[in-house]
């Protein structure tokens, strides 16, 4: 029995046992879907890093010593003038007090509660910089301003150099598996309250927790803003293309039954609902829709030609089973290549699509024919306009095959030349550049402070109480001052600053004593005194370990791209190697240092993934079509769209982010689908011994229309992602849409032209 006979037998048998099959499949779908409730809330940027990533490990080590690095910051900017106005200072004072009530807060630092040291004879007073706001007048405000601007641990940390913007920083210590929703909700309430109470002052919320939370809010807003419109589009498209309400309804059923269990399985597998996961349903939808359209359109064509309903669907299954299986398989393999990357959020998205692809195949070959039989189908005769147009296109290609090949070949060569201008870079701070509120905050903060991000460097003296030794303090001071000479750094603060300030104040405020004493016990006693002087939550635990063997530098960064950050990190490591022998350090640590490496590793991984997916797909096509020639020809339409779209990209920009790379893997499996459908029909045509021109006409008749339909669906799906407020989804959507569009053109023009050209030699 040959394969087609098996498929026929199989289809007839499921149609005979339709109820049993339906129940079995629906049960499977139901069980899988039940997992949706386990979908985890996104863990923000941490969901973009594998737990074993070395730079992330550095962050975790640091957090073990000093607590979580994430902060929430109130940004305060008076509409006119600087911070040193009575009502603005009052606002900061009130906001500081209320910030202590932020859920999971461990520390609040602001201009008012900054621990300021003053000296009066033998009285050393370390207390809040501003405590009594009632008695302030213009003179005292100006005095506070000049004092604040002299304090290196204030400027660029809680007050901008221009004194126009100030921060209230809240350090958070959120338990594992708990998001930032509670602290952020609290902060947003305060933001609303203070904006209403002080209409002349702009108060908003920033900080890494807010950044992290953007992942969640954009995922949610993307889902609510994109899905309904996309759904409507698909309903309209499927009706226009299939010209049958029932057929559209069948497609929709198959689509939903593919998406629901896939998201459910994502839940069972413990995936996080990160913004990239939002893409998964759209991809699954287009895959399922393409299957449904391929099977249904041929069944409908058969019915129009007078076949009975059952025979129509069985015949369609016979033609489509292999390509539907193959396209599901290649899509899955293509997308699975994303797992070679290093970003869990994208791997989870990819794996959900793989699951969805599997479900859509299963449903297309079980439920779809059954529902087709169960529902009343009325055909109004397919518009012959499309088929006529396709037939004309076939003729055109037959006549101009050489021109087509030459033209596309030249275009490819031209665009290939542009590709070397492209280089990899990334800017993780731009992820939410499509979220207006965030951009507003970001612009204020970046203009005034360089960036909203801090990084750290831990330096261990490798002995208990070692951080008070003059050698250590001088080294860490040297390190801090060197860091400050780097373009990427705005300012640095360390324990040496505290010692220097204390030494000055213990010596009558004399500036000559703003230095590190060569006396270890004295330094230790200064710190003891400092620790005895500060109130709740203002201790030095965020700067030094309990045994005083290690301390950390706090570094405010300027905006930098991935490339710059990596260069900065390498430069710092080199300086450390040359200057900090005898001390242990992981170098600079933090989100802006980690993310570039994540991207780099991810891009390298994706390249390997691409190689894997691509070779796998070519081999699979070769084997199933049992033809080396077709296998080799299939490479062309599957490679050229990528070259052309990257060439076009190079006209507009030089920067390739990891989302661009990702777009290749995501669309590869889909681009291949069209080729598979085309080539499998072509092979069928060859076996029917049709001549060259007729073979192409045969292909256009049977797959031209479905390929166009599927491509339009995919194109619209990806184009919809352009609405995403998540930058990565936006780029991914744009690139994939472009690739799909070019691939369609290539499949309709270049592929038939190539087939014609290579066929001639074989025909005697």
């Amino acid at each position, binding site marked *: 029995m040959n394969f087609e006979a098996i498929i026929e037998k199989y289809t007839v048998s499921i149609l005979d046992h339709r109820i049993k099959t339906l129940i079995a499949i629906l049960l499977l779908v139901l069980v899988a879907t039940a997992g949706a409730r386990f979908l985890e809330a996104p863990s923000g940027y941490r969901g973009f890093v594998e737990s074993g990533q070395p730079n992330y490990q550095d962050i975790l080590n640091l957090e073990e010593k000093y*607590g979580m690095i994430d902060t929430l910051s109130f940004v305060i900017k008076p509409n006119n003038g600087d911070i040193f106005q009575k009502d603005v200072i009052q606002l900061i004072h009130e906001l500081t007090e209320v910030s202590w*009530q932020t859920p999971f807060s461990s520390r609040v630092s602001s201009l008012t509660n900054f621990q300021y040291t003053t000296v009066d004879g033998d009285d050393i007073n370390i207390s809040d910089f501003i405590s009594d706001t009632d008695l302030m007048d213009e003179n005292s405000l100006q005095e506070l301003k000049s004092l604040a601007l002299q304090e290196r641990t204030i400027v660029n940390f809680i007050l901008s150099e221009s004194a126009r913007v100030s921060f209230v920083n809240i350090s958070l*210590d959120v338990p594992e598996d708990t998001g930032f929703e509670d602290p952020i909700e609290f902060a947003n309430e305060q933001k609303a309250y203070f904006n209403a109470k002080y209409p002349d002052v702009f108060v908003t919320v920033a900080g890494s927790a807010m950044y992290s939370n953007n992942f969640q809010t954009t995922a949610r807003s993307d889902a609510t803003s994109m899905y309904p419109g996309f759904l409507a589009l698909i309903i309209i498209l499927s009706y226009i293309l299939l010209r049958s309400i029932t057929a559209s309804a069948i497609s929709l059923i198959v689509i939903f039954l593919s998406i629901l269990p896939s998201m459910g399985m994502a839940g069972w597998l413990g995936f996080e609902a990160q913004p990239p996961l939002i893409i998964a349903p759209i991809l699954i939808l287009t895959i399922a829709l393409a299957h449904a359209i391929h099977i249904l359109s041929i069944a409908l064509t058969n019915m129009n030609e007078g076949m009975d309903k059952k025979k129509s669907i069985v015949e369609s299954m016979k033609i489509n089973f292999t390509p539907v299986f193959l396209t599901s398989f290649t899509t899955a393999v293509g997308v699975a290549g994303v797992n070679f990357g290093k970003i869990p959020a994208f791997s989870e998205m990819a794996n959900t699509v793989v699951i969805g692809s599997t479900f859509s195949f299963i449903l297309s070959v079980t439920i779809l024919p059954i529902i087709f039989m169960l529902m009343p189908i009325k055909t109004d005769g397919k518009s012959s306009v499309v088929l006529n147009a396709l037939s004309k296109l076939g003729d055109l290609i037959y006549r101009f095959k050489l021109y087509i090949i030459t033209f596309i070949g030249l275009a490819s060569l031209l665009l290939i030349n542009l590709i070397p201008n492209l280089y990899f870079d990334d800017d993780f701070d731009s992820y939410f550049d499509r979220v207006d509120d965030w951009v507003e905050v970001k612009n204020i903060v970046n203009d005034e402070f360089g960036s909203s991000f801090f990084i750290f460097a831990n330096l261990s003296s490798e002995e*208990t109480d070692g951080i008070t030794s003059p050698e250590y303090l001088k080294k860490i001071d040297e390190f801090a001052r060197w860091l400050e000479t780097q373009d990427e750094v705005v300012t640095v603060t360390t324990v040496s600053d505290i010692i220097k300030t204390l030494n000055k104040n213990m010596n009558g405020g004399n500036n000559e004593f703003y230095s590190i004493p060569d006396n270890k016990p004295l330094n230790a*006693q200064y710190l003891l005194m400092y620790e005895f002087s500060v109130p709740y*939550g203002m201790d*030095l*635990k965020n700067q030094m*370990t309990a045994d*005083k063997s290690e301390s950390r530098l706090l570094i405010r960064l300027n905006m930098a791209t991935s490339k710059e950050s990596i260069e900065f990190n390498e430069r710092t490591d080199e300086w450390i190697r040359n200057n900090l022998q005898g001390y242990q350090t992981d170098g600079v640590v933090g989100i802006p240092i980690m993310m570039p490496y994540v991207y780099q590793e991810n891009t390298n991984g994706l390249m390997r993934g691409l190689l894997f997916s691509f070779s796998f797909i070519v081999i699979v096509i070769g084997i199933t079509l049992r033809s080396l020639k077709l296998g080799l020809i299939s490479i062309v339409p599957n490679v050229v769209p990528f070259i052309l779209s990257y060439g076009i990209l190079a006209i507009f920009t030089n920067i390739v982010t990891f989302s661009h790379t990702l777009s290749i893997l995501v669309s590869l499996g889909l681009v291949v689908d069209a080729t598979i459908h085309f080539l499998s029909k072509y092979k069928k045509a060859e076996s029917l011994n049709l001549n060259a021109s007729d073979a192409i006409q045969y292909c256009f008749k049977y797959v031209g229309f479905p390929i166009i339909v599927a491509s339009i669906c995919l194109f619209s799906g990806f184009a919809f992602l352009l609405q995403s407020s998540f930058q990565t989804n936006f780029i991914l959507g744009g690139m994939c849409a472009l690739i799909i569009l070019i691939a369609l053109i290539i499949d309709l023009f270049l592929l038939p032209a190539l087939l014609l050209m290579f066929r001639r030699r074989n025909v005697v």
Partner: protein
Amino acid sequence: MNKFLLILFFVMFVNTNLSSEDNFEKGLRIAKESYESTRGYVDSESDQLMILVDPKGNEVIREISGKTLENDDPNDGDKSIIFFNKPKDVEGTVMLSHTHVNDDDDQWLYLPALGRVKRISSSNKSGSFMGSEIAFEDFSGNDYRKYEWEFIGEEEYDGEICYKLVSIPKYKNSGYTKRIGFTDKLLRPRMIEYFDRKGELLKTLYFEDYQLYNDKIWNADTFRVVNHQNKNKTIYKWINRELNVGINKKDFEKSSLLRLAD
């Protein structure tokens, strides 16, 4: 029938009479009795050992010796001197405190490396004691005058029926919004839970190793503190504690600090 009413009336009357002390008053009474049961020690001397334990189990040890002087003034706090012995770098540092009930304390520090006495800032009662999970204000946490009290019932704690008391600090710069503690029938505090400024459980202080001193005063010779937020622990031990040893009151004056340090 009349007889029944009479009994009912009697029962009600007696009951209201008994509970004429409300839960706030009862809480205050227990706290006051507990505090007073520790008074009359005149003065004391001890060595103290503090062990800081981080979440990974790493330990840091601090050694201190101290003297305290009971203040007869019912409106003021006790005086204390702390001598720092370990870590080595702070050896010889001395701290003198004159505590006050609901005002900032007065504190002076003698720094041997500087050779001078400095008066240090005042509003630090809520601050951590030498990097530990214990705040200055916790050492005098049994002073009933510092809190508003409420008795909220009796509950078994560690095998004994205890009074459960809620206390709210009166000191405006306190690091806490509320404490919930268990005091046993011998009026000894056994455990206190501390709630931070955002109302979340911050830490628990366990009073352990109770010893009866001079046949009349119970002192817990170990404070064990577990911070629930940063997962650190602190164990504070009193060793060789002696009460009523006859320390010169003049030792507790600022002018004596330099002399004492030698």
